[in-house]
């Protein structure tokens, strides 16, 4: 098997390295005069021949058995020189030898010069090119690299004149099917030499002697990197893994060297195919869950929708699915991601250096892109888990030009819940589904279009008296056009809608139906101008129209005393122009400079309260009411977003980066923090609610150790936020016509250090991330009513200083692998009751200062076991089993704690999502 060959290679290279070191240390090599040797061999293996020779010479021959193939040799020497016999035995192998005393060392590839070449000390060097200059691996690679598996040697070094170029040829095969791959390009990393494989996977090209980094690329296959040292003509056969099929792929893949090379900081690129080895919960592969195992991205708790990126609020993330905003990227209270893992091509997360193209959120951008369908043949992928079934189909529409990809996912959990004998769960329901459809068409070499439709729906009841439902709908249309080699453009038109609804039917007189909706449409033009090697410009313009129905409630049933109420609609227009320049000052220094100017206008029709300045915003300080007609501008805000980052190479594999980012946000999420229900609403800035602003400074160090497939990064950041939203004590956020009276806008600050170590390949791969980060909020005001915790900084709801994740995957054999995921987080802050008292004849609770206490620390261990189907060729479908246990330790991680005054007594409740180990089995298939 090719894999075991590769393994052998690595072993040999290790050995070689050691041998080499030994030789270099001893430095002295003797030539040995031996008497004539007679040896007759007939159809024996080389090993046998060497053993026989060893006996004749009364010495020792050192070699690695595996270096010798099984081919047989025949010869008959009489009174011959030892070197002649050795030459004969090693004929047609890539082995050389060194004779030292009575010891003979066989060496792979390397020819040991017994004397320094002529002109070696000739300083003008004029002759050196003609001489057979030795190629020491050390010249090109460090010793530590030699000991690693990834430097291959090509050809046998022969004593004699070295040519300018050698021919390297070979065949490239699919790692799994072992079929030759055609049309694969192989290039040297400097792109000076390249070739492509023919129909049978064969290739051939000329390389200069010495060290080369080779790279293969073909859509659908992993980009493979191979370091080689060329000694002579030789053969390099490679097996390349298909992108979506390999088990031992990197969990979180970044393009090799991007980590150190790009100017951006705080960028995470998640390879979708790779996450299939991460332990699952209830059989769901979840991209966003994977994201939260990386430093700097947190959730408030298990099953909490929304992410807190670098100390930012959950509303500060721009989550884009094919350029359209996905308001709620999760199913079932955040437990499952609403992103279909099979249709997703990539997920890029920007935590610090947000490209100037994006704006409108303070903390991050999650850019999710749906992959293109297969344009050649019909393909599909699916999975069957305990909760959901998932099927994705790829259909070529016009061969090699247009394709369709469609993915659907749905639960059958309702059926399971009903089958359970547990009475309390019988009446529950929980179901969701989502579907995505993407069409892409290459019209010609200058134009292509993409269109995506997405819909997700959730319906569940936690208590028997209420039914929650929410859904996301988005549509996206994109046209890419190349004007010429240097100019490209794209037009993007998107629309997203998020709605939720609560039906409450408990006691007859309070039954209601509550609805909320947010809708936005955006038109965006992006252009690229590749000015020169030094300057690459991106520029564009975009405009977005928001429309929000902040809530309406209507009674259900005749006896309900709930009065119909509807909060008037909100509208806003957010527009922006941007330009950025990727400016390469020299080989070491790269600037990515961007400027984005955004303008927001809050639009009527609306009535806005005018509050007395210097007085708390409440019903008593209203000094006037202003009425605005439809589309009349109520208030405008705007400002320049600055996006600046710089990279400097300290060494080719070590870089330092710094960035500064300023961002604005005009839409805010109102969410009560102890909530167990998804009753969060989005609110637009208006005359009484200012936009949020943030400034982030980041500094990072990045180191890649290619030979060990390691990527190390250390980033630190400091973020200052202004006008971030918080709530007064007792704030009521739903159905409040004067919501600004419940809101406070304060300052936030966050800082942290994030460490990430990734082992990208190998039998054992995975990553380890740790972050120490803090996030604080300050709500100060001269007015007591608008002051929280005495106006001091206090920990934000999602302040979890220590966050530790370990994701590992160990491949037992080609077909079996185990994976594990361990997470530890400091418990999140909570406002805790610290006592009770009697007021107006009733018992009341005294709460601590806001967020003074913390719920217990969160930790969880998951285990997964993956079984790959057999690798037979021409099988109908490739299959893959995953057995996972979520929360192996059975840790009862509290999600939230809340308190209710029941019949004059204070009762405390806690919620936890999964308090027991949850095993699941999922079956995946691909055809």
């Amino acid at each position: 098997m090719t894999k075991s060959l590769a393994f052998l290679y690595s072993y040999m290279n290790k050995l070689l390295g050691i041998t080499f070191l030994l030789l270099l240390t001893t430095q002295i090599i003797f030539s040995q005069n031996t008497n004539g040797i007679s040896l007759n061999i007939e159809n024996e293996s080389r090993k046998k021949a060497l053993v026989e020779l060893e006996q004749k010479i009364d010495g020792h021959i050192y070699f690695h058995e595996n270096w010798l193939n099984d081919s047989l040799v025949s010869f008959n020497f009489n009174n011959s020189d030892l070197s002649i016999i050795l030459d004969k035995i090693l004929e047609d192998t890539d082995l050389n030898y060194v004779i030292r005393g009575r010891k003979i060392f066989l060496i792979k590839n390397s020819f040991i010069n017994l004397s320094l070449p002529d002109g070696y000390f000739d300083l003008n060097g004029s002759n050196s090119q003609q001489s057979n200059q030795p190629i020491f691996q050390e010249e090109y690679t460090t010793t530590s690299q030699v000991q690693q598996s990834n430097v291959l040697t090509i050809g046998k070094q022969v004593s004699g004149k070295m040519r300018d170029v050698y021919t390297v040829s070979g065949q490239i095969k699919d790692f799994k099917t072992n079929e030759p791959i055609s049309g694969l390009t192989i290039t040297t990393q400097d792109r000076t030499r390249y070739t492509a494989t023919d129909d049978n996977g064969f290739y051939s090209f000329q390389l200069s002697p010495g060290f080369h980094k080779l790279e293969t690329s073909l859509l659908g296959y992993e980009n493979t990197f191979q370091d080689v040292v060329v000694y002579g003509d030789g053969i390099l056969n490679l097996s390349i893994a298909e992108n979506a099929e390999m088990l031992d792929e990197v969990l979180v893949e970044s393009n090799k060297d991007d980590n150190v090379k790009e100017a951006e900081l705080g960028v995470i690129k998640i390879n979708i195919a790779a996450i299939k080895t991460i332990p699952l919960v209830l059989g769901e592969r979840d991209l966003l869950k994977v994201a939260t195992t990386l430093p700097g991205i947190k959730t408030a708790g298990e099953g909490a929708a929304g992410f807190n990126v670098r100390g930012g609020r959950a509303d500060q993330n721009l989550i884009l699915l094919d350029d359209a905003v996905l308001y709620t990227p999760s199913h079932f209270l955040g437990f499952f991601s609403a992103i279909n893992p099979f249709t997703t091509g990539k997920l890029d997360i920007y935590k610090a250096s947000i490209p100037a193209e994006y704006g409108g959120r303070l903390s991050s951008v999650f850019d999710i892109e749906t992959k293109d369908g297969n344009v050649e043949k019909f393909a599909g992928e699916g999975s069957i888990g305990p909760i959901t079934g998932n099927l994705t189909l790829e259909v070529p529409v016009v061969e090699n030009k247009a394709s369709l990809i469609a993915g659907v996912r749905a639960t059958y959990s309702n059926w399971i819940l009903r089958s359970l004998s547990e009475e309390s769960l019988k009446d529950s329901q929980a179901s969701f589904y989502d579907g995505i459809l993407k069409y892409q068409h290459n019209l010609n070499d200058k134009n292509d279009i993409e269109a995506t439709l997405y819909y997700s729906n959730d319906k569940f009841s936690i208590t028997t008296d209420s039914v929650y439902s929410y859904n996301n709908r988005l549509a996206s249309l994109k046209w890419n056009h190349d004007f010429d080699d240097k100019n490209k453009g794209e037009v993007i038109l998107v629309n997203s809608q998020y709605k939720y609804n609560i039906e409450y039917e408990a006691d007859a007189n309070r039954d209601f139906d509550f609805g909320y909706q947010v809708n936005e449409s955006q038109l965006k033009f992006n252009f690229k101008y590749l000015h020169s090697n030094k300057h690459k410009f991106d520029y564009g313009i975009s405009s977005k129209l928001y429309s929000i129905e902040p809530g309406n409630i209507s009674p259900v049933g005749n006896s309900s005393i709930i009065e119909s109420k509807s909060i008037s609609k909100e509208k806003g227009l957010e527009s922006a122009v941007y330009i950025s320049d990727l400016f390469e000052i020299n080989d070491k220094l790269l600037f990515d400079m961007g400027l984005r100017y955004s303008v927001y206008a809050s639009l009527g029709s609306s009535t806005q309260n005018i509050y007395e300045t210097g007085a708390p915003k409440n019903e008593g300080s209203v000094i006037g009411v202003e009425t605005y007609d439809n589309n009349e501008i109520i208030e405008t805000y705007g400002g320049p977003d600055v996006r600046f980052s710089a990279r400097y190479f300290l060494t080719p594999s070590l870089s330092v980066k710094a960035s500064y980012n300023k961002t604005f946000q005009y839409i805010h999420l109102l969410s009560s923090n102890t909530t167990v229900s998804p009753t969060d609403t989005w609110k637009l800035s208006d005359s009484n609610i200012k936009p949020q602003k943030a400034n982030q400074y980041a500094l990072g160090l990045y180191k890649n150790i290619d030979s060990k497939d390691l990527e190390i990064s250390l980033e630190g950041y400091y973020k200052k936020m202004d006008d971030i939203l918080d709530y007064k004590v007792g704030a009521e956020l739903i159905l409040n016509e004067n919501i600004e009276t419940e809101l406070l806008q304060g300052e936030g600050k966050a800082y942290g250090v994030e460490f990430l170590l990734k082992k990208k390949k190998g039998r054992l791969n995975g990553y380890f991330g740790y972050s120490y980060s803090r996030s604080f909020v300050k709500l100060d005001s001269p007015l007591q009513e608008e002051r929280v915790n005495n106006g001091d900084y206090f920990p934000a709801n999602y302040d979890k200083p220590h966050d530790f994740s370990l994701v590992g995957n160990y491949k037992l054999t080609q077909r079996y692998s185990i994976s594990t995921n361990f997470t530890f987080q400091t418990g999140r802050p909570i406002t805790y009751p610290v006592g009770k008292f009697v007021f107006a004849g009733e018992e009341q609770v005294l709460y601590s200062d806001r967020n003074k206490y913390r719920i217990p620390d969160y930790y969880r261990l998951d285990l997964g076991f993956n079984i790959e189907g057999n690798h037979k060729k021409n099988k109908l479908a490739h299959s893959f089993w995953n057995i996972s246990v979520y929360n192996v330790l059975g840790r009862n991680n509290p999600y939230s704690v809340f308190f209710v005054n029941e019949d004059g007594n204070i009762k405390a409740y806690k919620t936890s999502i999964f308090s027991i180990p949850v095993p699941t089995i999922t079956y995946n298939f691909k055809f």
Partner: protein
Amino acid sequence: MKMKNINIIGLCIVVLICYGCKEAFELDTIDFESVLVVESTLSDELKNQEIRLSRTSTLEGNEILVENNAEVWVENSQNQIYNFSQNDDGIYVSDTQFKVEQDVAYSLSVTTQDGREYVSSETYLAPKSTITDLYAEVIEQNNVNGIQVFVDGSDPSGEGEYFKYEYEETYKIVVPNHSQFDAKVINQVQTAGGQEYDIEITPREQEERVCYTSQSSTGIRQTTTNDLGMNQVSRFPLRFIEADNIRIIQRYSILVKQYTQSLEAYTFYKTIEDLSNVESILSENQPGYVAGNIRSLQSTDEKVLGYFELSPVTTRRIYFNYLDFDLPQPSYFYDCDIQIYDYEDNTAQDGDLNERNMLAQLLNTADYKLISQNGTEYRIVNPECGDCTSFSSNVKPEFWED
């Protein structure tokens, strides 16, 4: 592809789902904070004003911790000082009667027995309001028929937009099985043939047929005219009485006290109230410490719960009963257990109880009341049906109008 044959669905069922688990748990105060709680609403009525001081207790605890032996006084901008002293109920009562005057600044000072000093910010009397109407109507609520008491209020000054309500209910009760006489067991002796005793019949000495029960409201009831755009409270639903409630069986009276509040005081009370009530899944709110207008002089970090407020009060009373609303008379709220026992029945061998024993037992230990006597036969009833002082007061309130 053998694996495909495995019954996948069968495997799925193994999974037990515990989602959205909500469980109650024992409270455990992390770090108990003993905080002074001040309930101080002074009014413009000339009376002995009252202030309550207590302390927060642990969440596990059940006691009300009254703050004893504190020095409490109120002073105003005219340099008048009113000292308060603790009465038997632990309430601090002003040593003299006084009423809060308009346009005069008042402040409250408290020095607790451990020497800590607290002071309120200077406060003025809120504007005076009136109750324009107080009335009751039959409505249906929660599928229950009943009488709703509504308040209409107004604020002639145009300033007082925030109202807090308290009420005191009084209702008249007439026991259904009253007689003029009491029966008492005397000369009780135990003999071989069972027990023997005499029953002494005496006229009742006090009123035990008609009683009046009074109850004060608890909790915070507030409303604002702000939403309505005029300085009127209209149809504020103050109290709902089910149609079969004992309160309206004879005659019911409710005294409504309407306080006007400043916006700050209103907000304070409302926040306290909001935090304790989860009425609907839509009304979850941000918990936290609710700061009032009283602070510690020793430490700015120390929490003090309470609001020193000066609220003008207006009161109004109405009376009604079931007849006013054409409702059927509610049944008496206790089951009346009328028993007839014969003193001569001194055996349980005749197929029924030993009535002599039962009679003595009920009269002696269960306080049964006599209804009537016929020879050796006595009709008796449980005390709730024969003597209203067993659960209420026979003192007719001074205000009571029949």
